């Protein structure tokens, strides 16, 4: 098969792109250079690191699932259901992206803390305390990460040719069947990339977690929190944890092959 010669991209654009990639690459290189490789096994097997890794993985995966379960319906309603005040609702849903995570955490505290608007009645009725617990970690990271899945899925739904759903309806498919067999499969790449972004954000979340969920090893101290604390005293542990985070993140994102990000 003969290959068509692609048109040459503007050289300035490529140069800028290379600078951009270096910008991402250099800190990682710096981290690798600073790592004490001989000390690594000790750190990696320490309780602090293992506890933090376990918590981070559990919390980020749970948060991604939760974000999908709640976020995809939100995206669907925003894209398909006409109602007044839609832009306000969309702004609300995207707020966690704009807010500094610590502010988000404080907001969660005001709402869901023991004296919070919702948290107080909950506590009085059931004795459940949401902050300073594993549940608090999941809530905090879900809060900051959910906008990503909403954004990507809403955009994909808006770009989807409405005729597909019309064809499905005229052929006899009810709304659930149409959703299940036509709409969702057609936006699958967007859902995948949305979930990847959501997970990544959840995995790296710091500000909201430390504000709302606390910072206790084994219970609420996720990887980013562990790094922050380690930086104060044990630099070797800090670089080890950072390295683990980079490796895990790269693994997950690389596993999502290129073709899954775009059209099949």
């Amino acid at each position: 098969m003969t290959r068509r010669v692609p048109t040459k991209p503007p050289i300035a654009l490529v140069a800028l792109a290379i600078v951009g990639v270096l910008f991402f690459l250099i800190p990682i290189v710096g981290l690798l250079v600073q790592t004490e490789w001989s000390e690594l096994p000790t750190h990696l097997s320490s309780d602090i690191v293992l506890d933090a890794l376990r918590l981070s993985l559990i919390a980020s995966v749970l948060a991604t699932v939760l974000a999908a379960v709640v976020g995809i319906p939100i995206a669907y309603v925003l894209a398909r259901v006409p109602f007044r005040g839609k832009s306000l609702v969309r702004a609300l849903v995207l707020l966690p992206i704009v807010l500094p995570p610590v502010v988000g955490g404080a907001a969660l505290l005001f709402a869901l803390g023991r004296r919070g608007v919702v948290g107080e009645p909950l506590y009085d009725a059931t004795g459940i305390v949401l902050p300073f617990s594993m549940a608090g970690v999941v809530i905090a990271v879900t809060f900051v990460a959910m906008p990503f899945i909403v954004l990507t899925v809403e955009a994909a739904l808006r770009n989807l040719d409405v005729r597909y759903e019309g064809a499905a309806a005229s052929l006899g498919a009810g709304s659930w069947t149409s959703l299940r067999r036509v709409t969702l499969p057609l936006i699958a790449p967007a859902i995948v990339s949305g979930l990847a972004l959501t997970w990544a954000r959840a995995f790296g979340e710091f500000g909201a977690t430390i504000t709302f969920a606390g910072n206790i090893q084994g219970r609420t101290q996720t990887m980013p929190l562990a790094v922050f604390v380690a930086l104060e005293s044990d630099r070797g542990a800090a670089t080890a944890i950072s390295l683990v985070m980079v490796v895990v993140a790269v693994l997950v994102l690389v596993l999502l092959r290129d073709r899954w990000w775009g059209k099949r």
Partner: protein
Amino acid sequence: MTSGLDASFVIRRSESFALNVSLQVARGSTHALIGPNGAGKSTIVEAIAGLLAVDDGSIGVDGVTWDDPSSGVYLSPQVRSVAVMFQDGVLFPHLSVSQNVAFGPMSRGMPRAEVRTRVADWLRNVDLAGFDDRLPSELSGGEAQRVALARALILDPDVLILDEPFASLDVSSRSSVRGLIQQRLAMFKGAAVVISHDPTEALLLGDVVHVLEAGTIVQSGTPSSIRLSPATDYVADVAGVNLVRGFAGGGQVAVGTHELAIVDHDVSGSVLVSFHPRTVTLHPDEPRGSARNTWRTTIESIEPRGETVRVQLGAPMALTAEVTASAIASLDLSEGSAVYVSIKATELSVESAAISDV
């Protein structure tokens, strides 16, 4: 009427545009709807399919109301027995050919084994046996339209709508798909509506032709009556053209016992020849000139249209001519008069056709 489709409704799409149509399509017949883009054709498709509700009037089939705002009835598209064959197919890109065709019956709860048999039958009916596992992206335009047709007809609907079925096809696939559609329409027991902006298809497929302009049907009738008495300029120029079927070879087209000379010496086989009535000149005596097509015929009827006149001519080849009213007067022509017609070969458009077109 209680059998077939009865759609008489108004839809207001915007401040300035309102669609106001009335269609009665009997079972077993095909009505064609022609109109320029923006006339409201897709709105009609959506209204009958149930994707859009009407503002006034009603839509019903076989006496059962599908949409009637005054009595509060509105059946959702899933419930209506209507199938649409969309322009460029709108096949589900992630499903295979057989999955696409099976979609309707599966959604309506038909048992799997029965669906499988039906799908196999219908793929055979549209000459796509063996295409089961192909994806829409692997199909040519013509093949995709065939799948779309199978997907619609497998449901055995009461109403079939063909929305610009040939718009996305190139000339060569058009004739074979057209042939298939004509064949299937002939066997179809429900009411069929063909929507098109191209008059050739509408005139070929429709028993009755409706011309839609700016939201209203300006003329309805058989293709020949529209040709003879076009109600508007659009009808006259677009819908009211001559269309004859013949057999081409060596620069000649045999139309029944008559022969037409055409420019293209390479085309052969079944063809459709079209030409505008304006290109036909009438002469009291046999003309001697460059026009290759000249013959003697009789005037069957004359229909005045203001300053122009449409003349229906008979054997050996029926056609419609358009001349000025003063010409008719000065030539002293009337019904029954013998007259010579003359058409230049360059004015004849020739298009390959499927056997069944002829």
